């Protein structure tokens, strides 16, 4: 059996295990063990993948399996991975693993919580291993049910509003995708007359230019909504602020990356000419995203909103890097997906932990937390530094590659856009350092806070697993960089590379 199937099988078994568990403690243990196995599987898959590559296999996708599903419309269940998806799978399993421990203390409807959370993750895993566009879309949509319930039931603040807004906006995004999906399916001329959803088969033929021009915006915006592209980002601050910790982690950390991944793997790969033609429109939008998100974060008083706006900014950078259409910038963009995924998950985990102690997320009400909870404080500081791109942590490598690639364009338009995007780094530094200054350093504002305790063992597992990954990528990025670089090749070759 293909090892990739385990990525779907383990969560399903875990969910079954949770469903039959009797006690609260059993539920979370089953969840933790299941997601630990998932993490191990992801690491094994990564090594298997690298082993295959080392043995000289140059296929675009490896570890492929193909099962026919609907013969009439030629839908297959086709799975396989390349370097990009292998990295994304690892990212997802780290975040889910950390998310389980971050929600160790969930007590309201605990069983349902973990089932929904793991189902949400299953959709993401399925998305990354799919090669058939139909199954890919199916997995993508699978996230809708659990997402709504997770935010609506276990969220905080205006959760009903946020849950509905997030669900409807993302559904609207996938509505655009449906149009693009069938456009691609019916209008990409197949060699043997049989239409196909298979990504690799589709990439061998190209759509006519008018069709590309029509469908590219659908595909791009469809995924762009998920990637929080300005002006379709408004679900993100509300949704992420209201969601329970683990969902914010998973959503900002991984689900938003599906947007960038889809833009790259589907929109730009299958409609390269339209991508080149229309890139300027979206470059304007993404550089606005980057700047807007950063400035938005400055004005926020709630920790989660700060992080949500900062996600808009960073995810804007992902799409910005992709649109630069050269290998360096694209590689940086994908590194940024992984780096930001880990970083933002770490942030949301920490915010959840702080909130569970202080019962507030308003920065001005807190202060001097470093003194009472040194572990959480230090980790928060490191995460902050990674976010503003300090060398030695993951953010630096990613952002440097993006800007390095972007500067290879020497025309005025790209220069201006790049400089705009780069200037966001300064703004990022402002809001990160401001939060760190008020929240962690400074005097303790509330006497009661002196009694607060530092991280518990499960919180340490949650944060350390993310922190190790962030630092690991920062210190030794080469293997990841190279692995992604190899896999970008076939896609970049179709785009017009400057």
């Amino acid at each position, binding site marked *: 059996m293909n090892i990739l199937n385990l990525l779907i099988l383990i969560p399903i078994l875990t969910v079954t295990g949770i469903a039959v568990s009797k006690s609260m403690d059993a539920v979370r243990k089953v969840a933790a063990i299941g997601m630990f196995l998932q993490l191990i599987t992801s690491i094994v898959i990564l090594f298997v993948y690298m082993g295959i590559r080392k043995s000289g296999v140059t296929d675009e996708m490896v570890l492929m399996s193909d099962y026919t599903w*609907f013969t*009439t419309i030629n839908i297959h269940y086709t799975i396989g991975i390349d370097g990009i998806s292998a990295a994304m799978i690892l990212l997802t399993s780290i975040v889910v693993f950390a998310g389980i421990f971050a929600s160790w203390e969930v007590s309201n409807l605990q069983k349902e919580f973990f089932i929904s959370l793991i189902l949400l993750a299953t959709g993401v895993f399925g998305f990354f291993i799919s090669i058939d566009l139909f199954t890919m879309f*199916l997995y993508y949509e699978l996230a809708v*049910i659990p997402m709504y319930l997770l935010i*609506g*039931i276990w969220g905080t603040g205006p959760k009903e509003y946020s849950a509905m807004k997030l669900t409807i906006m993302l*559904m*609207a995004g996938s509505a655009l995708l*449906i149009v693009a999906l069938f456009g691609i399916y*019916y209008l990409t001329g197949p060699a043997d007359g049989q239409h196909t959803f298979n990504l690799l088969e589709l990439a061998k033929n190209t759509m006519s230019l008018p069709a590309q021009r029509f469908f590219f915006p659908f595909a791009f915006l469809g995924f762009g909504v998920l990637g929080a592209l300005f002006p379709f980002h408004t679900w993100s601050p509300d949704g992420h602020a209201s969601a329970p910790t683990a969902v914010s982690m998973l959503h900002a950390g991984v689900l938003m990356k599906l947007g960038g991944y889809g833009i790259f793997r589907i929109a730009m790969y299958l409609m390269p000419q339209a991508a080149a033609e229309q890139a300027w429109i979206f470059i304007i939008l993404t550089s606005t995203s980057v700047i807007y998100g950063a400035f938005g974060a400055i004005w926020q008083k709630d920790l989660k909103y700060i992080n949500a706006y900062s996600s808009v900014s960073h995810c804007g950078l992902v799409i910005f890097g992709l649109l630069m259409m050269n290998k360096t910038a694209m590689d940086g963009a994908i590194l940024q997906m992984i780096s930001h995924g880990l970083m933002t998950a770490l942030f949301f985990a920490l915010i959840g932990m702080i909130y569970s102690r202080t019962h507030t997320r308003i920065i001005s009400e807190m202060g001097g937390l470093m003194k009472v909870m040194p572990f959480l404080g230090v980790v928060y500081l490191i995460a902050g530094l990674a976010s503003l791109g300090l060398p030695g942590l993951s953010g630096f490598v990613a952002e440097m590659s993006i800007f390095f690639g972007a500067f290879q364009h020497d025309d005025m338009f790209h220069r201006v856009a790049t400089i705009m995007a780069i200037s966001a780094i300064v703004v990022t530094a402002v809001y990160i350092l401001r939060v760190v200054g008020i929240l962690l350093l400074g005097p303790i504002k509330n006497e009661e806070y002196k009694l607060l305790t530092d991280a518990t063992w499960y919180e340490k597992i949650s944060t350390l697993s993310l922190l190790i990954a962030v630092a690991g990528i920062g210190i030794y990025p080469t293997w990841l960089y190279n692995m992604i670089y190899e896999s970008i090749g076939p896609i970049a070759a179709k785009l017009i590379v400057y």
Partner: protein
Amino acid sequence: MNFQDLLLMQHELLLTLAALVVLCVEIFSPENNKRMVVPLAVFSMLLIAAVSFFFPTSGKAFGDMYQSDTLRGAMKSVLDIATLIVFLQSYGWVNKEENRNKISEFFIIIFSSLIGMNFMISSGDFLMLYLGLELATIPIAALAAFDRYKMKSAEAGIKLILSSALSTAILLYGLSMIYATTGSIYFDEVRAAFKPDALSVLGMIFFITGMGFKMSLVPFHLWTADVYEGSPIAVTSYLSVVSKGAAAFIFTFVLYTVFPIASEIWLQVLVVLSIVTMTIGNLFAIRQGNMKRFLAFSSIAQAGFLLLGILGQGQLGMGTVIFFLLVYVFTNLAAFSVVAAISDATGKEDMTDYNGLYKTNPNLSLMLMLALFSLAGIPPVAGFFGKLFLFSAMASKGYYIVLFIAVINATISLYYYLLPVRAMFINKSDNPIEHFKSNIYLKIGLGISVVGILLTGVFSIVYEYLISVSAGL
């Protein structure tokens, strides 16, 4: 004409037999002991469904007026399944104190209406179609007024009979125009003689209008919400699934087989109708507080989606329409069964009554959620496949703009399908509906529906089968 030909109509004959058997039991059983009736009706329905599925007939009788083949057999099977589930879910309601003396009537009337639908589907000419349609509709009007001591139920009966009288008149008017220009009422002959001149096209449009009433397409939908709300829930679910399904089957079939020459015209009409139907149905559903009215408008919107499948034309269109309706049968009946269970136990039918339902009745809540997500077209349940295949069928003919409008509508529909979910799972209530146990029949009915929702999509064999029986259109 010999005995063998008569056996082609085995399905209709068996249904007639079942109606007679129930009638005899009614006559010969004592007044206050009619416990036999429900199991008997359910069992005969099951038997009929099995016989007609496993021993399909194929051929023509009565000078081609009656036709039977695998395609029509598949349509009838879908209706059989739907009726079976309706029977199962009606148990609690027919056994209520006030209905106990007329249990058998319910089943006899449903059987006769189903006979009508079967004749309609099997018709080879417009006269047969008309007869079947009438036989199908008039009994339902009686059913709608079944709770005759309730004002709303009586009103529903009157509304249904009046609006179907009007629609039938329009339909007949249209058919007479077609007869006038083509000189025949037989499908094959009409097809050969049909020319898209003004009078013929007008006749065809009248035909579409008449059928539009039955399928409650906008702007012919005004009776729907009131009738659905007033009728007993079992009747409402029968109306929204079986009656609508039968009309949609024969509508699609006639458009494909009788009017292929005028396809450009009816395609345009359908595009407009479907856009209006989806949009109006969706927008009105948002504001509904009563679950039955809510499901009524949702079913209007679903009919709009169904029309999109017809745009696919030919084998793909027909197969997809049947598949969508099969999925719709399971989905809508699951939703109605939950509504019926709650209504039987507590008499409550408003969405606000559902607040906090998950805490007290988790299983019912989960099933209703599953059904609503299937209606909204969210994977992995069957509704997703049903809807995507409709979209696929339509996109195969290049209707991308219409597709765009449809997916926007699907997004709007998700909003209101989430409202009951929010009520059940998120809203808090001081006095939620108490925990109650449903009767075994309803549980079986719900079980069939839920298994259908979960499996029809994922197991590709169902779709493949329906596409294969639609070959040659």
